């Protein structure tokens, strides 16, 4: 700093320092202030205060509780007296006729044990629910008179809902709903039921040790088949979806790399003396990058329909622009001396590029490709959700039903694991290939793209 020269009077120096301090103080307090002001603006622009009213916390509660628990429905058809038991009330999870879990005793009067003293009895005429600490609730559904409910004396608590045609009781142990046509009990359990085997499989409910011993004695194929074709959790489809998502990322990233590399030469000052061509190539890169994966997905989905190919091509087109830019910058920074050295041995043009240029940019090329492979796994999930393919599609489908939250939780866990795995894998490969470059110069040769 020139102001530190000694011939300046102390007074001026002091004033200088003061000004510097003031400026720093302004920046130090002004910048956080600006950020705060902006956030306050956004707070109101996004109508966050109104959001708390619009938000549906009941949805949130079902979502969270449903994601780690499931309910079993016990239903009595009041017109013909038939009783059916089904997990989540789905046909895929229904117990075969005449069978039930051990907490349901079928008979003329079906007794359903909800534990902690809560017992529901489906009699021929009347439904009874013993609630400890409250009493017994009776309801008699009939075609003519609706649902006639008898409650213990006193005020009706807010977890009981009575009307002419409907009785609903909601306790910690479960839920009872009685209407004219049917009586229904939900009992809640923790866990992901039927995750391994559905009820129609002979392996349902078997302990792991027994399964292992059966697998050893030759049933491994059948066991795996029952698991793989599980109708509730669809493990086969999920595995395919994950594979499709990774496939999209793989095809898109590497395809983009292969297309972008030759084009990148056209966009460099040192390899392409034609100014107009250089300019045009660069604008093409800017254009495909600027149009963005969203618009490419929309456009390509019109041509190819939904599926992994559309997603792969959308990634490919967008990343061609990105790679073209990165590669051409790398190519502009290559060392001319190596190329001259190769040329001095009498190499022709392809050999000059192969031995003089490519080895120089290989580390950048590889590390960018691998980095994008990981980030595109995430993009492929997003694109899949829009255009319909891979795990993104399964996720949106499960969310749209608004009840399969345990499946949503399962898919989210899988997606996170998939992305973390790809992250780890690409990092591992990058370290191996690029560290190999400096340590043992012949390592990454074959890995050229």
């Amino acid at each position, binding site marked *: 700093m020139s102001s530190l020269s000694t011939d300046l009077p102390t007074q001026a120096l002091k004033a200088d320092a003061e000004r510097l301090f003031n400026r720093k103080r302004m920046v130090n307090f002004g910048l956080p202030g600006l950020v705060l002001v902006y956030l306050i603006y956004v707070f109101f622009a996004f109508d966050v205060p109104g959001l708390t009213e619009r938000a549906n916390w009941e949805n949130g509660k079902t*979502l969270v509780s449903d994601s780690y628990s499931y309910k079993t429905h016990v239903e009595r058809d009041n017109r013909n007296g038939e009783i059916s038991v089904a997990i989540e009330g789905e046909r895929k999870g229904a117990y075969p006729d005449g069978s039930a879990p051990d907490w349901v005793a079928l008979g003329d009067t079906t007794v359903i044990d909800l534990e902690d003293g809560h017992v529901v009895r489906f009699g021929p005429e009347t439904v009874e629910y013993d609630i400890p600490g409250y009493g017994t609730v009776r309801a008699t559904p009939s075609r003519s008179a609706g649902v006639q409910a008898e409650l213990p004396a006193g005020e009706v608590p807010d977890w009981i809902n009575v009307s002419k045609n409907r009785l609903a009781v909601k306790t910690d142990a479960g839920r009872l709903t009685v209407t004219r046509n049917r009586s229904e009990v939900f009992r809640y359990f923790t866990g992901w039921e039927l995750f391994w085997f559905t009820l129609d499989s002979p392996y349902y409910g078997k302990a792991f040790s027994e399964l292992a011993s059966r697998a050893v004695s030759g049933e491994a194929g059948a066991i795996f088949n029952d698991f793989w074709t599980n109708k509730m959790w669809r493990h086969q489809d999920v595995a395919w979806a994950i594979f499709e998502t990774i496939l999209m990322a793989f095809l898109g990233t590497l395809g983009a790399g292969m297309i972008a590399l030759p084009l990148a030469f056209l966009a460099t000052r040192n390899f392409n003396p034609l100014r107009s061509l250089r300019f045009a190539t660069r604008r093409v890169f800017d254009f495909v990058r*600027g*149009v*963005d994966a969203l618009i490419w997905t929309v456009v390509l989905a019109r*041509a190819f329909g939904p599926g*992994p*190919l559309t997603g*792969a091509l959308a990634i490919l087109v967008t990343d061609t622009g990105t790679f073209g830019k990165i590669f051409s910058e790398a190519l502009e920074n290559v060392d001319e001396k190596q190329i001259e050295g190769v040329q001095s041995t009498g190499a022709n043009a392809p050999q000059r590029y192969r031995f003089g240029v490519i080895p120089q940019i290989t580390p950048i090329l590889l590390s960018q490709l691998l980095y994008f492979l990981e980030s595109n796994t995430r993009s492929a999930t997003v694109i899949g*959700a829009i255009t319909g393919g891979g795990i993104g599609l399964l996720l949106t489908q499960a969310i749209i039903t608004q009840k399969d939250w345990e499946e949503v939780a399962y898919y989210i866990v899988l997606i996170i694991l998939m992305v973390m795995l790809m992250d780890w894998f690409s990092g591992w490969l990058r370290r191996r290939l690029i560290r190999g470059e400096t340590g043992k110069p012949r390592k990454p040769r074959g890995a050229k*793209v």
Partner: protein
Amino acid sequence: MADLTATAESVDQIRDEYTAMTRRKRVYGGILLILFVALMVAGFRTADSRNAGSFVDGWHRILDYPAEVLSEAWEKIAELPANLVTFFPALIETINIAAASTLIGTLAGTFLALMSTRGMALWPRLIPLFRRISDVFRAIPEIVIALVLIFILGGGPVPAMIAIAIHTAGALGKLFSEVNENASLKPVEGLQSVGANWSQRMYLGVIPQVGPNYVSYALLRFEINIRASAILGFVGAGGLGYELRNAMSWGQGRYDEAAAIFLLLFVTIVIVDQLSGALRDRLTHGAEKGATA
């Protein structure tokens, strides 16, 4: 090592070894190349067969849709300015989502990064925990959180903002902690010796060292987040993406609106890219000039 007493045989030997090595390398390279091509071809065919329409049938139709949109937009070119004005608020919303989530994500990412760097962490024992947190945040695609939050909070910009901010926090947390590793701890020790508390040590000792790098990474994230916020709009989170989906689902007759939205999105992305590129260039290359100020 050069052996000065090397005889003619050993030169031959060396040459033989060298040719053998080159040949081996060539074989390995060839095998890898074949493997790679086979993977690409097999992958392409699998993707093609699982797609609704095949590549061969579809590739000549790629331009049909853009042509349709553009021709209709061209017929109604007079309405373009009006359309641009109509959708300008949506554009502002998209930019706001990106900016707010970048800001919040940067703040959270800074916190995560400081908490997961040795020598700076407030609770050194919890370093692995904070690292895992940023790993998980980084791994969650924005759309997952956005879709779940839309179910609870209803459509609008807030779910998108939260979703993008979480991912940004994770991504920046990792990048920032790499920057932190290279920062000198001496100012921190100096500040500690005069009795500064943790926040003072970080704000006065670390942030000035890493500030330019942080800002540069945050700008790069802002570019990415503009695109992300447009995409999330498409699944119902407000902004340009939402308008785009509406205009598209109307189909023919509304293509002029779709074209206006395409145009706005494209121009915004290009402008933000250029601006942030220029700024980042100044931050990294102009550092020497600004160092004395």
